[in-house]
């Protein structure tokens, strides 16, 4: 792959098209590429919120209705809301977060943790994270700390593994947040809200050849071998300190 992702790849990321794993891995660590995507999002968000349509665009609207263009969906994927431009709903089982799972990202890492959510061999599986805050969506740069109210969505390049399971690591044990089939690099059709509970949370992302039950995920977590081939990534997610006890929330908004 070239030194930087092409502008076509970056523009398509802005449009919701999942990039190749190599591009995803590069963009996650490249300020220039991230800056381009951010400028596009700023332009789109600005046009959506503040700018009025130019007269020449209005004149087009008067002639014909606006056609809609949607991002491609992989086979079998549920149709998610376009979270870049509409109110965004989490899937039903994401309500697990209402029990107090807070998720965040930041530069703090446990000594034995992976260096970041984008560590992957070229062409292998990788995990990226989109963050939605105040109507703005950006790719996590491993420096931004998440805040209560942020919503995150995982972008996963499965590297050939057909099954994915995402779990939250709580004091009580591992809680499965999402499990499903994945085809090609894509965003999961669910997202999670960040709350103020706790000072750090962990997500476990497991890609596997076969479907893994909760019991199997727990066994893997204990270090026990499983029959199916798998790949796993632990995301260490620090978050901003709680502002005050009075602002303590009950979980996901």
């Amino acid at each position, binding site marked *: 792959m070239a030194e930087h992702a092409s502008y076509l790849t970056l*523009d398509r990321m*802005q449009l*919701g098209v999942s990039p190749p794993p190599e591009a995803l891995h590069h963009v996650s660590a490249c300020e220039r590429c991230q800056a381009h995507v951010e400028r596009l999002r700023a332009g789109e968000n600005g046009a959506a919120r503040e700018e009025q349509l130019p007269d020449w665009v209005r004149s087009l609207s008067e002639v014909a209705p*606006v056609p809609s263009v949607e991002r491609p969906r992989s086979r079998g994927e549920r149709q998610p809301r376009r979270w870049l431009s509409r109110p965004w709903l989490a899937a039903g089982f994401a309500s697990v977060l209402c029990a107090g799972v807070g998720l965040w990202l930041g530069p703090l890492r446990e000594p034995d943790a992976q260096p970041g959510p984008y560590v992957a061999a070229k062409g292998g599986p990788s995990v990226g994270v989109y963050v939605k805050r105040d109507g703005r969506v950006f790719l996590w740069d491993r420096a931004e700390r998440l805040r209560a109210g942020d919503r995150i969505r995982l972008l996963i390049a499965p590297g050939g593994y057909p099954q994915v399971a995402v779990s939250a690591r709580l004091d009580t044990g591992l809680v499965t947040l999402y499990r499903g089939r994945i085809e090609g690099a894509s965003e999961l059709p669910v997202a999670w809200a960040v709350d103020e509970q706790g000072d750090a949370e962990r997500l476990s992302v497991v890609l596997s050849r076969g479907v893994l039950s909760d019991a199997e995920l727990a066994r893997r977590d204990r270090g026990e071998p499983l029959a199916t081939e798998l790949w796993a990534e632990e995301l260490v997610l620090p978050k901003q300190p709680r502002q005050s006890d009075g602002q303590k929330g009950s979980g996901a908004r």
Partner: protein
Amino acid sequence: MYRRYFAIIRAKCTRMLGDTHAAEDVAQETFVRLWRDAANLGRDPCRVSAWIYRTATRLAIDQLRSRRHREAEPGVEAVDTSSPEVLIAARRALVQLSLELDPEELTVAILSRIDGLGQREIAEVLNKSERTVRRLLERTDARLAQWPEVAP
């Protein structure tokens, strides 16, 4: 559609033309054509973005050829803020190249050197085979060797 695509179109045109007025004109023309062809293009953003790159590049080439007696104007904020001087120099070179290269070669040069597209992406945007694109790139690279401003 404007909110979704125009920032992309404008950024593309600014990369190629630098001058904000010319870039805005080409961006507007590109969007108007997109609006007209939207029903034929369908909903696939990959297809739409490839169309944008192809159409905006060709309209920009028309704009560049009309500048053959003027140089590209400096001082425009570059999209690539990490190397504005390089990008401005590349734009100036493109004005000269628009006189030297045929439209097909110039299109490939812009997609490759300005937009950073690889061979496969260029083939997708131009609806050509990768073999054809490879030959065009080889021919264009030989011509561009004398213009280091647009060297990869």
